[in-house]
C-alpha cells in the first residue's frame, strides 16, 4: 500500500504544479542557488560575547563571564551552591575537559553515564555539567550537538539543573554563522533560557518539563 500511496501523491504533486503553471521552472538545484537572500548575515558585528551574555540572561538563564583561568573555581562554586540546595550527584558526560572539574569540593559527588543511566536515575540527579557546540549572540541561544563533553540528549533534559560552559570562541554573532558551524547529521538541541511556556494567557512562564535552572559560564581568554 505504501508504494502506491507514494506514487499517487507524487503524481498528484506533478499534476498540481502543471495545473498551477509552476512546473516550467528550471532544475531544482539551479533554481535554489539562484534564490535571492537579501537579509543580513549578522545584526551585530562587535561586542558579540557581551551581547550573548545579555540576551541569554534576558530569558532568565543565570549568566556569568569568567576568565579561562578562573573557570574551574567558578564551576566548583556553582555546583557547591546547587548541591547545598538539592541532594544527589552531578552527571558528567564523557569528554568533558578534565580541567573544568579541578578543585571540586570533596562532598560533591559525580556520576558517569557509562553505562547509560536509566531515565528514572537521571531524574534523581542534582544536575548536569556540559560544554556546548555553538552559541548565538543575537538570540542568546546555546546549541548542543551532543558530542564529547555534552552527552546524549537525555542527559541535559531530565535533570532539573544544567550548568553549561560556553567558550568565547564558540559564540557566533547570528543564525547564519551558527548553522554553518554545525553538522546536520548530528542531533541538536537549541536552548534559549530555561524551560518555559506561553500557554497560559500567552504570558511567558519559566519552568515546565526541561531543566528549570540554566546556569551559563562564559569562559573568556
Amino acid at each position, binding site marked *: 500500500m505504501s508504494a502506491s*500511496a507514494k506514487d499517487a501523491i507524487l503524481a498528484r504533486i506533478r499534476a*498540481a504544479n502543471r495545473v498551477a503553471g509552476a512546473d516550467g521552472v528550471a532544475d*531544482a538545484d539551479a533554481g535554489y542557488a539562484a534564490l535571492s537572500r537579501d537579509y543580513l548575515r549578522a*545584526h551585530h558585528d562587535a561586542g558579540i560575547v557581551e551581547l550573548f551574555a545579555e540576551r541569554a540572561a534576558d530569558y532568565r538563564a543565570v549568566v556569568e563571564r569568567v576568565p579561562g583561568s578562573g573557570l574551574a573555581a567558578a564551576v566548583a562554586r556553582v555546583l557547591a551552591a546547587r548541591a547545598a540546595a538539592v541532594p544527589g550527584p552531578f552527571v558528567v558526560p564523557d569528554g568533558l575537559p578534565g580541567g573544568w572539574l579541578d578543585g571540586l569540593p570533596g562532598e560533591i559527588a559525580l556520576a558517569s553515564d557509562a553505562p547509560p543511566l536509566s531515565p528514572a536515575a537521571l*531524574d534523581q540527579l542534582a544536575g548536569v555539567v556540559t560544554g556546548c557546540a555553538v552559541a548565538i549572540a543575537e538570540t542568546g541561544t546555546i546549541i548542543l550537538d551532543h558530542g564529547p563533553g555534552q552527552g546524549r*540528549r537525555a542527559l541535559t533534559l531530565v535533570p532539573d539543573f544544567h550548568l553549561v560552559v560556553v567558550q568565547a570562541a564558540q559564540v557566533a554573532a547570528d543564525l547564519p554563522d551558527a548553522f554553518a558551524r554545525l553538522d546536520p547529521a548530528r542531533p541538536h538541541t537549541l536552548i534559549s533560557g530555561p524551560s518555559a511556556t*506561553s500557554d*497560559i494567557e*500567552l504570558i511567558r512562564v519559566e519552568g515546565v518539563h526541561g531543566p528549570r535552572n540554566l546556569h551559563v559560564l562564559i569562559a573568556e581568554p
Partner: protein
Amino acid sequence: MTAPAPHPGMPTYLGMPAFPAAARTAVADSQLRANLTHATHTIRAKRAGAVAELSDWEALRQAAKAIKDHTLAHLDTYLLRLEENVTRAGGTVHWAQDAGEANAIVAGLVRAAGADGVVKVKSMATQETGLNEALAADGISALETDLAELIVQLGHDRPSHILVPAIHRNRAEIREIFRREMPDAPAGLTDDPPALAGAARTHLRQAFLSAQVGVSGANFAIAETGSLVVVESEGNGRMCVTLPHTLISVVGVEKILPSWRDLEVFLALLPRSSTAERMNPYTSTWTGITPGDGPENFHLVLLDNGRTSALADRTGRQALRCIRCSACLNVCPVYERTGGHAYGSPYPGPIGAIITPLLRGITDPVDASLPFASTLCGACYEVCPVAINIPEALVHLRAKVVDAKREKTFSTERVAFDLSGRVLRSPRLLAAAQRAASASRKLVARKGRIRRLPPPLGGWTETRDAPAPPPESFRAWWARTRGDRS
C-alpha cells in the same frame, strides 16, 4: 462535549454549525471574549517589538517566501530527496494520502512496538487527522504533553488556537480543570501560572520517563540532510523525541525545506512571529537514528490529506507556505471576537479560513462559510512571516463558493445582483429605480434608517441597517437645480 463525527479527511469538528451561527454563540460569551482580548492584545504588542528588532525583517520574509515557493514548485524532487536521506540515516518513510491512511500507519507502528499508549508533542498534522480519536478506537491511548493541549484534553474541550490551543481559558478556569481532572494535582493549587505549569510537570513526569512510543509532528523537514526540526518551549517535545524507544513523526508534505541553511531564515521568523521571542526555549533537530542517543526506531509519515489539492489552486497554493506561527490569529479582529471554535476546524483564524476550504474543499457548508469569516482588513497579510496574501486568497475562495452556488441553486442574492447590474448599465433604468426608491422611503424607513426589509430581501437587513434612500437622488437634484447650465 460530544465526540466528533468521523470524516475521511479532517474529522475533528465536522457537525459544527457554519461560521455565522457558531460565531453568534461565541460572541455572546463574555468570558471567552475577555480571555481572547487579553491574550491577543498581550502578544500583539510583544510581537511588534520582537519584529522591529530586526532591521531586515522584510528581506527575511521575502527570502522565506521565495524558498517556500521554490520548494513547492519542486515538491516531488525534494520529497524524494528527503525520503532517501531519512532512510540512509536509519529512519523509515511512509506515505499517507489522507487522514485514514496516516492514522492506520501510526496505529500499526504502535502495535508493532508492543505498546498500548503514546506520548505526544503538540502537532497540527495529527490534530488534523484526528489521530487521538483513531488511536482510541484501536485501544491505544494518546497523552498530550503540551501544556495547552493537556488543558484541552483534560477539559474534554477542543483546541481554539494554533499555538495556544487553550487560549480561550484563563488561569482560573485552568485551575478548575486541573483540580477536577488531574488526580495528582497538589492540594491548594492556585491559579498562579508558574504553579499551574509546575502541576503539569509533576503530572507528566512519570509518563515521559516510561514512554515506549512518542508521536510528533515537525516544523521543518530538511530534504538535503533528512533532518527533522521541532520548535517548542516547554521541553515536552524534547522528552517525546528523545526518551521513547520508537518515534513516529507525522509531517505534512509542505513542511519540507531544501537545505539545512534555510533554518537561518525560518528560525529567525518563526519564534518572533509566534511567541514574540528572539528564540523559543527549545528546538530539537534529529537525523534518522543516532546510536546510543534517543529512539532506536524512527518513522516519518508524510501526509497529503488535501495538500496536493491546495497545490493545484494557483491563488490558494500560497497557503502551503504557512509555518503555523499564528501571528494572523492574534491580530485578526474577527478571531479576537469569535475565538477559534467557530471556525469548525483545527485551523482557526485567517489562515484557517483559507487553509480549511483549500484542504477539504467547499462542498460542506462549514467550509464554504469560512472565506466569508473576515473583514478583509489585511492585518493578517501584514504580519505573516511568509507573506501569504490571505485577503487575496479569501476573495478568490469567495468567488469559488459563489460560482459553485450559481451552478446549483436559485438565490435571491444572485437575482438581486443580476438585476442591479442591468439597472446600473442603463441611465434610464437607474433614474427610474432611484425615483422608485425615493418614493418608497416613507414605506420602509423609520428615522432615516431601514431596519427591516420585507421578504425576500429580509436577509440583507438581518445583520445590518441600511440608510433610507434620500428624497431626491443626486442626478435628479442636479437636473432640477443646475440642469439649465450643463
